[in-house]
């Protein structure tokens, strides 16, 4: 008996520790969601459509990509392929969370999969790596703790953005909010020489291939840049080992 009563408050405290870990991300996710709401309504989406986008897809960069390509009247299949390519990193997050959470029952894994985000991944893996002795229930409690402040902020701020969106004047040059936001998100990702190679190839090919029909240039640039990054990583690793 004492076992169960001792266990429950413990998981509570782990959940709240996760909550505190996730809270700073609200200040990243919130403005990003407001911006999505604003740009989506500027592109002609109503509040319901904008909110549905954020709830169903729950991936900022992919949503912006889809929105931008739809505004350019790219074919639907290209919109889907490009936005999903942006989201391929979620598969990587899923893979790297598996050693920590893979032993959970399938229904729990199916449930938590929806909440795999840049923020929850970053928040949870730092903790799991620092505390390898955590039990599975503790890891799950921590994961959902990280998610608890972030996801509601994502929904609510999308709604706020959608409501204020139509009142933003043209003089604010909001057309450039998206490039600036993406550049700011991208810069910290350029951690290694291989990442720089990938980004450079991406920029070069996308400009050279801009004339391709159906906005195909984005996909061509993305695939080539991905391969360039992976090849550069192998090359740099080999050079490091040779030294």
């Amino acid at each position, binding site marked *: 008996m004492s076992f169960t009563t001792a266990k429950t408050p413990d998981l509570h405290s782990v959940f709240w520790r996760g909550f505190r870990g996730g809270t700073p991300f609200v200040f990243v996710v919130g403005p990003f969601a407001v911006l999505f709401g604003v740009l989506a309504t500027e592109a002609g989406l109503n509040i319901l459509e904008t909110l549905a986008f954020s709830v169903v*897809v729950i991936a900022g960069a992919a949503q912006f*990509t889809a929105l931008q390509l*739809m505004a350019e009247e790219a074919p639907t299949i290209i919109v889907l392929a490009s936005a999903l390519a942006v989201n391929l990193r979620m*598969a990587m997050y899923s893979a790297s969370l598996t050693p920590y959470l893979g032993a959970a029952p399938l229904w729990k894994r199916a449930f938590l999969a929806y909440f795999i985000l840049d923020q929850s991944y970053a928040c949870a893996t730092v903790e799991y790596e620092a505390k390898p002795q955590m039990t599975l229930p503790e890891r799950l409690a921590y994961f959902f703790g990280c998610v608890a402040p972030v996801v509601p902020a994502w929904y609510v701020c999308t709604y706020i953005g959608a409501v204020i969106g139509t009142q933003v004047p043209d003089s604010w040059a909001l057309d450039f909010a998206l490039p600036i936001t993406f550049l700011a998100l991208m810069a910290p990702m350029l951690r290694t020489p291989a990442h720089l190679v990938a980004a450079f190839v991406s920029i070069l090919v996308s400009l050279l291939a801009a004339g391709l029909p159906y906005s195909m240039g984005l996909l061509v640039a993305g695939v080539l840049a991905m391969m360039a990054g992976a090849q550069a990583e192998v090359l740099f690793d080999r050079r490091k080992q040779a030294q």
Partner: protein
Amino acid sequence: MIDKSDLWIVIIGLGVGSYFLRFAFIGLVGSRHMPPWLLRHLRYTAVAILPALVAPLIVWPAATDGTLDPARLAAAVVTLTIGLITRNVFGAIFAGAVTLYALLYLLG
């Protein structure tokens, strides 16, 4: 203008696809090992796609009918530079926005 039926196809298709990407490994692959070459490629997806998306928007902005705009170009360079130096997303956005507004005002 965005076509409404296309929009819902994108929302639902992207929702299902994104969920699948999130579920794929933790749900289906489980604890089996992933080939290193696959993980290596997945590591570069974001830095491969996002620059390709923004580069044409920076060089040929729609707001100026596709002609290179000094204010927007400078704002992009400042955002990226501050982002690389400080690793701070907000600082970079703020610096880029200030540069953009200042130059739009000065260049009229």
